[in-house]
């Protein structure tokens, strides 16, 4: 079934409505540091385009598309530094699989996933009893609902409901993450068949976002190397910078290949250990690429790269805010080691 290429092409084309290819970043700039840090209207538009149900299986009313389509979309969104919490929303929809109310299904109400128990850990089982605490919830400020993932399953809770408390904090990219506390009573737990798979898909999707973001940052930097002149020459003519620009391209293509090959393998179906090993390999590369891009973009821009005024500043802030979400490279190297040793055994 090679229809994915056509599907992906159509999705990426439709993405141009939200993030015009190489368009300006004015919208992104304007939304920073003003809660919720993104536009609920644009999120609703994303819902109208059907993207929120992209990865939900057809039997649950979703589009049932594969990870390659999903990754293609997220690369396009990453290129546009999209501030709306799409990866988290996709995960939330995937976990709740068509069981949410229609305002959530169609994106009028933002629902994000609240899954993470500890910083730099993929644990989501939660405590045996008592309050449930979920960290690093993307887009928490504007969310009207949360898909809370725990040992018991997934619970859809609404913001403002008794017992649901959300505290938000700003990230360097001007979005806000949240800490969610669930204390009252016992929410209705819905069964989740494949939470680990859903989480791996989210990690892969987020990696694709980082790939798109890095690709954009590299393009902006290459453009700068072409136009910025010092010593009567474009700085891109200096070999010291040329070699490092080439290295950026090498890392970019390694990351792209790893993402799309892994996406294809996931679509074909993998054992849990092989999947974890592959996805963690991808996330390690993507986080490394984003941080390399950020370092080089600042350095090659010189002083202007240290400001928030230039577009590259937005890209750098996004990279340092997002590189470690869904697990740092350190976490994923460890996870890869464990998973690949297990699958080899």
């Amino acid at each position, binding site marked *: 079934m090679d229809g994915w290429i056509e599907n992906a092409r159509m999705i990426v084309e439709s993405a141009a409505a939200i993030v015009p290819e190489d368009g300006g970043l004015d919208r992104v700039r304007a939304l920073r*540091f003003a809660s919720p840090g993104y536009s609920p209207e644009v999120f609703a538009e994303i819902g109208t385009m059907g993207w929120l149900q992209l990865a939900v299986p057809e039997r649950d009313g979703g589009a049932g598309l594969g990870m390659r389509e999903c990754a293609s979309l997220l690369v396009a969104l990453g290129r546009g530094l999209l501030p709306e919490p799409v990866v988290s929303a996709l995960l939330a929809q995937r976990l709740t699989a068509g069981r949410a109310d229609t305002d959530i299904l169609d994106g009028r109400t933002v629902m994000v996933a609240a899954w*993470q128990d500890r*910083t*730099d*850990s993929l644990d989501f089982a939660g405590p045996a009893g008592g309050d449930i605490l979920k*960290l*690093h919830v993307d887009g928490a400020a504007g969310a009207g609902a949360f898909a809370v993932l725990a040992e018991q399953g997934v619970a859809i809770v609404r913001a403002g409901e008794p017992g649901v408390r959300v505290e938000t*904090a*700003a*990230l*360097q*990219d001007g979005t806000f*993450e949240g800490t969610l506390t669930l204390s009252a009573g016992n929410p209705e737990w819905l069964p989740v068949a494949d939470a680990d798979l859903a989480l791996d898909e989210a990690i892969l999707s987020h990696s694709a976002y980082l790939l798109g973001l890095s690709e954009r940052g590299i393009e902006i930097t290459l453009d700068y190397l072409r136009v910025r*002149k*010092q*010593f*009567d020459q474009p700085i891109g003519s*200096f070999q*010291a*910078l040329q070699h490092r620009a080439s290295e950026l391209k090498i890392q970019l293509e390694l990351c792209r290949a790893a993402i799309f090959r892994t996406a294809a393998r996931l679509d074909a179906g993998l054992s849990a250990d092989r999947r974890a090993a592959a996805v963690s390999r991808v996330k390690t590369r993507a*986080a490394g690429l984003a*941080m390399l891009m950020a*370092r080089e973009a*600042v*350095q090659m821009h*010189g*002083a202007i*790269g*240290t*400001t*928030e*005024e230039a577009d590259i*500043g937005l890209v*750098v*802030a996004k990279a*340092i*805010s*997002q*590189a*470690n*979400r869904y*697990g*740092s*490279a*350190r*976490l994923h*190297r*460890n996870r890869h080691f464990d998973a690949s040793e297990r699958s080899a055994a």
Partner: protein
Amino acid sequence: MTQHQAAGAFPAQSLPDFEAMSDEDFRQTVRRFVEAKYPDIPRFSQHRLRWDEVKPWYGVLSAEGWICPTWPRAFGGMGLGPGKHLILIEEFERFGCARVHDIGPVMLGPLLMKFGTQAQKDFYLPRILSGEDIWAQGYSEPDAGSDLASLRTRAVRDGDAWVIDGQKTWTTLGMDANRIFILARTDPSVKKQAGISFLLVPMDAPGVTVRPIRNLEGHAEFCEVFFDAVRVPLDSLVGGENEGWAIAKALLGHERVFIGAPRLSGNALARLRYLAEARDVFDDPALQDRYTRLKLDVEDLSDLFEAYVDKLRGGETIGPDVAILKIFQSELYQRISDEMMELAGATAGMREPEDGDPRKHAAGTWLAARPTTIFGGSTEVMRNMMARYVLDLPTR
């Protein structure tokens, strides 16, 4: 235009002969000084404080006669040589003292002592000591960064004045300064380095405008300064007409060596460890291995730095190989900050320090480390200079 208010005259005390003290006595003296006198302002700040915040500390240093550590005592300084100055810096760092607006004490003062007229010294030096004048450095322009000599701001002699037109940028804390020294082109007809002059300009002169620029942390730490037909008296020139390049290039004593001091890297390494312990992962052998690599680098850097300080103590002049120190220190600082970012996990991207604890603030360290490879000669340009002037490799 400028928010700067003169701190007022701080009469200097009569100071002991610090150079006559043993290093250990001097260290204790500095330690007691900061513990007793440091005002109620932030410590261990990873960003530059604005004048309103740091003014009490400038006031204390000024009143105590400690604001210009390296100036000769005859000029109102502490008369410290490199060894004692290093101790002072170390103890200030250890306590987490904020960095004051030090362009006057560090750059302009020594430069005027060497190249200024008697009248310039008499007028400007006391005002730096008292905090009445806060200076900014106006060298860089939008199109003249690494290639500073291509600067285009012009100064034209018109009767009793120089008339200045052009723009400076990346002027650190220029919004807080009441004076700026600039390099301006006074002869466009000659080789670019040969037609540049060094001028002193009040920031409140008609035609000077300032626009703050926000850095990646959202702090306005530098600004653009525009000059539109700004008139300054002829005696605003330091040194001879068209001698500005030589003046600016004239080495600012041992400050160049101190840029390579291991303290930035050492502090960052301590924060890396602190974060690892807070995360309960310092027992991870893989992390220990990476931590130890960085630690060895910091310690070797310390040895190299001390070797340079010894040269200074012995009165040797420092050559272009001092780039070795600057390159290694600034890149090491960045590598440590990279490791902190990875270790911080999802909190790496937080705008404010986790739990309000600056020692856990990976992004703060990462961002603070970025400019060190850009200003004061970018790493790339420094490596080019090394290839040429230290390694004597052929040029194209």
